[in-house]
């Protein structure tokens, strides 16, 4: 099964999604330093191509789970920027009413089922969603994003084994940026590629250049079409680069953006310069609007946390 490459209109939408993520996160970086965004904030600058190419092919009823570096996945899946930023600022108008924060963003309406602060913690949960889809006779799929650091965790291998055994419609999307928190991959494992780590489980897998949005689109599209038709599981490893620290404010020096490692730089040359600039400017205006919305949203009532521990029976 082959997927069609993104056409011109779809290409512009991908560019817009990448710019929305990039400009949103750059703004989050500024707001973090200004003390308006609290907590531990992990940005995905440099990795936007993966989020855009994967999520833009999914439906709202496809479940996406992510890890701690999740803003881009939420945005690409459809989360409104204003409510996402309000969440990062702990406001009542946030997606989770300020109870989650950056590492625990959820937007069920758009099928963004959750980020997590536990590395790899959502990998088995995503498999449970795929199991539910199968049992309910649906053609929806589950996708989970994780970094290469998660592939050394036991729950990753447990889940890959189960997904393969049960042949469930789960697509594992690894963003291999070469770093687990502050440490290069080579210090953690002798397995160079995450796709090699799943080889014994007979999972259909591919490693692509994650900074090439078209390459991610094509391979993911092929896996998605197969998963919709009853195939699975799949592992898509996207080699990419994180152009910021593990979290905002960490002391480590990382590589600078270049034409080669920046997915937006690489993709926007396909379009007329004015057209590409209009896309960027549109995203910038959306981010400005999001900042206004978030700043205008009040903090939650202090009674909220006690009321939200349990769902009403």
């Amino acid at each position, binding site marked *: 099964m082959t997927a069609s490459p993104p056409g011109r209109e779809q290409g512009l939408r991908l560019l817009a999604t990448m710019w929305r993520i990039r400009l949103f996160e750059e703004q989050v970086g500024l707001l973090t330093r200004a003390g308006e965004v609290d907590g531990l904030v992990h940005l995905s600058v440099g990795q936007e191509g993966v989020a855009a190419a994967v999520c833009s092919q999914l439906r709202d009823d496809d479940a996406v789970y992510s890890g701690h570096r999740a803003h881009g996945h939420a945005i690409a899946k459809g989360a409104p920027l204003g409510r996402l930023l309000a969440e990062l600022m702990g406001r009542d108008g946030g997606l989770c009413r300020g109870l989650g924060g950056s590492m625990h963003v*959820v937007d069920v309406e758009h099928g963004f089922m959750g980020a997590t602060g536990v590395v790899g913690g959502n990998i088995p949960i995503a498999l449970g*969603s795929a199991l539910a889809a199968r049992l309910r006779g649906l053609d929806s799929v589950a996708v989970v994003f994780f970094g290469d650091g998660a592939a050394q965790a036991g729950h990753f291998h447990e889940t890959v084994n189960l997904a393969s055994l049960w042949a469930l419609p789960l697509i594992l999307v690894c963003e291999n940026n070469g770093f687990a928190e502050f440490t290069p991959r080579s210090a953690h494992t002798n397995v160079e590629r995450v796709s090699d780590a799943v080889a014994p489980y007979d999972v259909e897998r591919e490693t692509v250049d994650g900074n090439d949005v078209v390459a991610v689109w094509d391979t993911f599209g092929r896996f998605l079409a197969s998963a919709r038709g009853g195939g699975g599981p799949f592992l898509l490893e996207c080699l990419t680069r994180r152009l910021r620290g593990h979290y905002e404010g960490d002391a480590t020096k990382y590589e600078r953006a270049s034409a080669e490692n920046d997915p937006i730089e690489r993709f926007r040359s396909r379009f007329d310069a004015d057209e590409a600039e209009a896309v960027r400017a549109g995203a910038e205006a959306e981010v400005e609007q999001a900042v206004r919305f978030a700043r205008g949203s009040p903090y939650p009532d202090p009674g909220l946390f006690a009321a939200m521990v349990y769902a009403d029976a």
Partner: protein
Amino acid sequence: MPETTYIRAITSTLAAAMRADERVLVLGEDVAEGGPYTATAGLAGEFGTARVIDTPISEAAITGVAIGAAQSGMRPVLEIMFVDFVTLALDQLVNGAAKAHFMSGGQLTVPMVLRTQGGAGHRGGAQHSQSLESWLTHVPGLKVVMPSRPVDAAGLLASAIADPNPVVFIESKTLYFRKGEVPDPVTPVPIGEAAVLRAGRDVTIVALSRLVDEALAAADRLAAEDGVDAEVVDPRTLVPLDLVAIVASVEKTGRLVVAHEAVEHGGFGAEIVARVQAAAFDYLDAPAARVGAPFAPVPFSAPLEDAYVPGADEVVAAVRALLPSSSRMA
């Protein structure tokens, strides 16, 4: 009312829930084979292995699978074969299941049940005999249920499956073949309601799980040997705790002993005692007392295990220590 065992009460409640609601599924190690205590015996035959799912020995992943299935519209009942192995599932349970509703601002619910069993008495040694409920009661977002009677095992399991929150359902391996009357069809027992199993005037004994029968035996002895009339309360649910029922009993008797099989140090008895003294200090005629296991792992050797596990003797001794010697009739 038909009489059945604690374990069959669980099996028939699972079967009834699966018949009534196609979203209910059972998963865990060996569940399609019935499991070591036959809790799920026959379910795979009736409902098929698509809904009664044998899993590999991957406690972390299968707990996550149950959470994800629950978040996507199913009602999974996960079995962790021994509560000792809940250690391997704790990240998923504590960081995942317990917090999803809260952290999502109410967008997500996790209507799952984690069934497991604990307790000593089968010479299982220190890694197959623990009582770990107090760890789980410390986590906001989980409900924790510990039935002692077959009728409550059935009724509380029915309520746990229907509950929109993650419920940890802790059975006792020593109670599995205990018989009792259980209505058919099962009557749901509300989560969070204690039961007064023996009315009395002189002392309140709050007992959990296996210690409930021990407390009832102790109460009979205290009546016969000391002329002491003990009230025995089974909370049945630890989270949420029916403090109202316990406090009402203490206000009547003026004395409290809390008895459980778990290690006394840091056990749930401390929570009950602290809350009762805060709510009813003026009614207490003596310091509240606890009965629990010593601060040691469960020993393997049979006489040592027997000596280690608290029972009616320890409950009787704890009650006697609370009573002024002049009040004893024996």
